[in-house]
């Protein structure tokens, strides 16, 4: 007897149909084999399936069972084939019809219940694309799959339930399609209003968030760099539906969606520790998994203590920062993950941290400072649009004078403004493959960033005075574009360009 159950395999962001052929033969010695390039987790599913069926009060057939995962030359990975294999084997005992237009996915527990399994969204999306009507997933993963419209999603609790459903004895309620509720940014740890002082830094962060620019914050320990970065999470614009789905898909592949979790509605904010490995940051592994850069897709990648990251890890960021996507090539396969993130980096001005501190003396030699700065290369720093200094805040000043802080705007108010500016950008770049000012290439800059004559004069003068590189020159225009957008101006005026110059990279050494 041969039974066929359908499921998927994923290769990066792409899904691929997999047929699980279960042959239950009365000839030959009883046994259970899985073929078709299964990995360890798939091999082990034999034991899980055997125990789960037994514990579900269904007889496990004492026959020769061969499971083939077709196409046989693509490596299969993970525990998602437990359910389809079990459905196939049970069919030989219970004699039910396996629905043709359905996909199955799920990991079994030994007692027959189904566990949360990664990849449910990916399968639902694949089902919709390929015209499958039903997807059967663990109940805990059902919310995740239900964000895809036009596919019947069944959340399965355990093997008994699916068996009696397939026998027609019991109905399972479809999980209703839930339109993604885009709540916008995550609840940030801090509100912008809580950050005392730091008027310039706040302004720079607003510009960065509005145009999707990368930003580097330099300041002595305790000056509030991390707090500012955390508060930044609260002013990011909402994800749109397309973006949300992209992010959810990535998280589903990485297994980062919690049980009963659904669509990712907030922009990701990833803050890997500086001990992160190259693979951890970029992605990879035998079966290439998305790394932190991809998990930060459409969100923020925050690298605190930027200069403490191993240089090789930092330099690997160059291409992803530029391209917004990343191809991980391994001998067996190559996959491409998107990684369009906003890089937020923070570092100290020198190893001891107090080079720019108004009161504490720095104990570093110029050579140490130079070496410290060299840890991040010029090409990488050149890809960061805004460079700001975060000064030490005199708490006393704010305790004495409640009115001392100039900008007490809440994150909410800032976000409203930023969202408006992002909308403007969406309209502007409607026919282009880019979304935000920061992504503009030179051709876009020429087309969309018209400088007034005065602005142009200022820029060329600054280029001479500060010896701006060609890339920095273009960066200034990009920043000025966002500043003009925030001001609601169509063209870049003098004042916008002048302000943009404040965020150029500055030298902090003693010459």
């Amino acid at each position: 007897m041969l039974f066929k159950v359908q499921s998927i395999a994923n290769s990066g962001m792409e899904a691929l149909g997999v047929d699980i052929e279960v042959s239950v033969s009365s000839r030959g010695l009883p046994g259970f084999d899985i073929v078709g390039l299964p990995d360890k987790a798939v091999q082990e599913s034999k034991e899980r399936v055997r125990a789960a069926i037994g514990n579900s009060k269904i007889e496990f057939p004492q026959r020769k069972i061969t499971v083939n995962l077709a196409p046989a030359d693509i490596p299969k990975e993970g525990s998602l084939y437990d359910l389809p294999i079990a459905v196939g084997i049970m069919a030989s005992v219970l004699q039910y019809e396996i629905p043709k237009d359905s996909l199955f996915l799920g990991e079994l527990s030994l007692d027959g219940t189904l566990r949360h399994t990664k990849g449910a969204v990916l399968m639902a999306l694949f089902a919709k694309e390929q015209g499958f009507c039903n997807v059967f997933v663990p109940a805990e993963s059902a919310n995740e799959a239900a964000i895809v419209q036009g596919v019947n999603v069944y959340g399965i609790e355990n093997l008994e339930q699916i068996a009696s459903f397939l026998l027609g004895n019991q109905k399972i309620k479809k999980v209703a399609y839930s339109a993604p509720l885009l709540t916008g940014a995550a609840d940030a740890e801090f509100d912008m209003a809580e950050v005392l002082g730091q008027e310039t830094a706040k302004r720079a962060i607003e510009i960065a968030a509005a145009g999707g620019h990368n930003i580097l914050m330099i300041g002595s320990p305790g000056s509030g760099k991390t707090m500012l970065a955390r508060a930044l999470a609260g002013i990011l614009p909402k994800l749109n539906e397309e973006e949300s789905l992209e992010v959810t898909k990535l998280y589903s592949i990485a297994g980062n969606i919690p049980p009963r979790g659904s669509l990712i509605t907030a922009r990701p904010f990833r803050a890997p520790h500086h001990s992160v490995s190259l693979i951890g940051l970029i992605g990879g592994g035998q079966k290439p998994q998305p790394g932190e850069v991809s998990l930060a897709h459409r969100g923020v990648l925050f690298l605190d203590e930027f200069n403490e990251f191993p240089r090789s890890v930092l330099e690997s960021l160059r291409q992803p920062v530029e391209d917004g996507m990343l191809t991980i090539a391994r001998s067996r396969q190559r996959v491409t993950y998107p990684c369009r993130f906003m890089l937020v980096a923070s570092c100290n001005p020198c190893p001891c941290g107090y080079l720019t501190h108004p009161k504490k003396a720095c104990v570093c030699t110029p050579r140490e400072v130079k070496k410290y700065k060299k840890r991040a290369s010029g090409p990488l720093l050149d890809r960061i649009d805004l460079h700001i200094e975060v000064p030490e805040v005199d708490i006393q000043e704010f305790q004495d004078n409640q009115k001392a802080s100039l900008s007490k705007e809440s994150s909410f108010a800032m976000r409203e403004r930023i969202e408006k500016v992002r909308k403007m950008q969406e309209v502007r770049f409607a026919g282009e493959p880019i979304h935000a000012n920061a992504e503009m290439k030179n051709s876009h800059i020429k087309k969309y960033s018209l400088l007034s004559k005065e602005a142009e004069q200022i820029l060329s003068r600054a280029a001479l005075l500060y010896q701006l590189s060609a890339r920095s020159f273009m960066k200034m225009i990009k920043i000025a574009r966002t500043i003009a957008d925030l001001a609601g101006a169509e063209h870049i005026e003098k004042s916008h360009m002048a302000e943009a110059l404040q965020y150029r990279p500055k030298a902090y050494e003693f010459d």
Partner: protein
Amino acid sequence: MLTEEKNVVKKENSRYPSLLGDISDAPKQLYYKGTWNLELFDTCLAVVGTRRMTSYGKRMTEDIVSKVARAGITIVSGFMYGIDAVAHKAAVSAGGKTIAVMPCGIDIVHPEYQADLYQEILDTGGLVLSEYEGTHPPANWTFPRRNRIVAGLSQATLVVEAGEGSGALITANLAKKYGRKVFAVPNPLTSAVSQGVTQLLREGATVVGGAEDILQYYGLRDRVPKLSLGAPKLSLGTGVQDELEQNIVEQLEKQSLHVDELARRLEVLPAKLGAAISMLQLEGYIKEEQGRYYVN
């Protein structure tokens, strides 16, 4: 080697600087790089200070040294990073002459990352001196020994910034011992590198209010026009039309400020302020150093 033999001046030699010869423990010989020109030693000012200078110290050094060097006084210092290096640099860029006294053998540059400055000193007709030959490495004891040459070569020693136990204090005390004048630039007492200077002032060093005080001592008062220290030469209305820009300059004339402090004082949002500051910077009215703004 032959060239090495050439680049050494013994104490008995008539080319040996007489002022240095006066001190009791004058070095037996001086190795040198550059062109030995006795005129260089006529009027010398030693400028010394901490390695951990603040931006205040840097500004004061640059300001005083450039004016003094322009008046033809040779600036002598120890080629260390910090105040020493700034003094050499300021002298070179002011078109003046400078002498670097090394704490190591004449054939090595210490610290080696200042090789550019080393070359500049030589290119502008300055001298590099050492009492040690060849590649003698710098050691703990060579630094204070070096200081006696710095003090010995100069009629006066100027201390810009010095912390407690700073090497600059050794130089100043040697200068006193040799009967030379000691000048000190007043420092804010909150600064970590002010204690040494304060101590010197307490012991009778002369307060320096600007380059004129030093020039007066050298009798060069007339050779330079009266220059005021860092005072803005801003005639309002010529370049600075904007009211905000005027206010910024007025604030910065009083003291250097971080842009956030400026924003709070003037109650102007950073967006607007940033633009105004950029304009002032481009016009050359103000400049920024380590995040703080100064009137140029």
